[in-house]
């Protein structure tokens, strides 16, 4: 076989793979939908402190479960329309990961002291702690969950690009979380829109928007900078 033929064959195969991947370009959907849910949750910052936890629980259980169901339904519809089935398991799993990340991020915003969302996380620094004198670091659960979640997903799906993307996304969420928390803590209280639990004023609006922007940025990266083929 001649090298010219091999090059031609590789080009054809590459083209087929790209067009298939374009049809299946669904990895952006889970982070996009959860980013929008984060933005929606920003409205809950207006709920009085006494009811905030209950409302937050109801919102996230409903919205998160609904989002995972939407990911499943969308994937099935795309499969029926194009006749080519995407990675349903991976997409739903990524929705579950983002749900967990969302809960972990929200926990830092809404919960302080004895009451915690589902009561399984136990680090007070989820609310944001001073890294140095003038920089606050947000919760490190969301970046950790993203890195671990997409790391495992990348291994399961044999897509190493996904593992790397998870690490980059985790770094992005950590940076944006830090920016958001620093802004929130340094801002005059009436701008920061937070809730007071006990004696602690916890910023709400800005961190939520920070996480939402991070999620939407991850979606944009998945949508426009496609993951390399496995």
């Amino acid at each position: 076989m001649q090298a010219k033929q091999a090059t031609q064959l590789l080009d054809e195969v590459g083209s087929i793979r790209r067009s298939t991947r374009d049809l299946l370009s669904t990895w952006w959907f889970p982070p996009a939908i959860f980013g929008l849910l984060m933005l929606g949750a920003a409205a809950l910052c207006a709920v009085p402190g006494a009811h905030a936890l209950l409302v937050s629980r109801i919102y996230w259980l409903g919205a998160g479960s609904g989002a995972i169901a939407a990911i499943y339904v969308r994937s099935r519809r795309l499969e029926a329309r194009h006749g080519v089935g995407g990675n349903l398991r991976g997409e739903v799993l990524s929705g579950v990961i983002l749900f967990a990340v969302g809960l972990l991020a929200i926990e830092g915003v809404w919960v302080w002291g004895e009451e915690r969302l589902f009561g399984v996380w136990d680090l007070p620094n989820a609310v944001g702690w001073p890294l140095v004198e003038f920089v606050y670091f947000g919760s490190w659960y969301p970046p950790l969950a993203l890195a671990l979640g997409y790391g495992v997903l990348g291994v399961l799906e044999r897509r190493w690009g996904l593992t790397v993307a998870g690490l980059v996304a985790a770094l992005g969420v950590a940076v944006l979380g830090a920016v958001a928390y620093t802004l929130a803590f340094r801002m005059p209280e009436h701008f920061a829109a937070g809730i007071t639990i006990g004696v602690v004023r916890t910023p709400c609006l800005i961190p939520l928007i920070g996480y939402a922007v991070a999620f939407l940025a991850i979606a944009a990266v998945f949508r426009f900078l496609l993951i390399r083929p496995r």
Partner: protein
Amino acid sequence: MSHPTNGIDDLVHQRVRLGILAVLAEADRADFTHLRETLALTDGNLSRHLQALEQAGLVSISKGFRDRKPRTWVSATRLGRRAFAVEIDTLKALVDRYQTEQQRG
């Protein structure tokens, strides 16, 4: 060192079969119509290639219904994905070797 062409698998190397495996390397499964249209084949032609790949254990074929219409789904087996990856590596090695020889003059 053996020549890269020694790594070519005649079953996979065939252009249409490589195209089928290329689709299935990206998708978990593809239906018969999608493969036929993507690769611009006739029903009979595609059927023959799928049969060859299935007999070699490189793809699995299942049938189902959607909206009361029968659909045939094809997916690559683990062996099929591996064979495809080896074939692509072999082709790349062949091209690299040729380019190296060209540079040496």
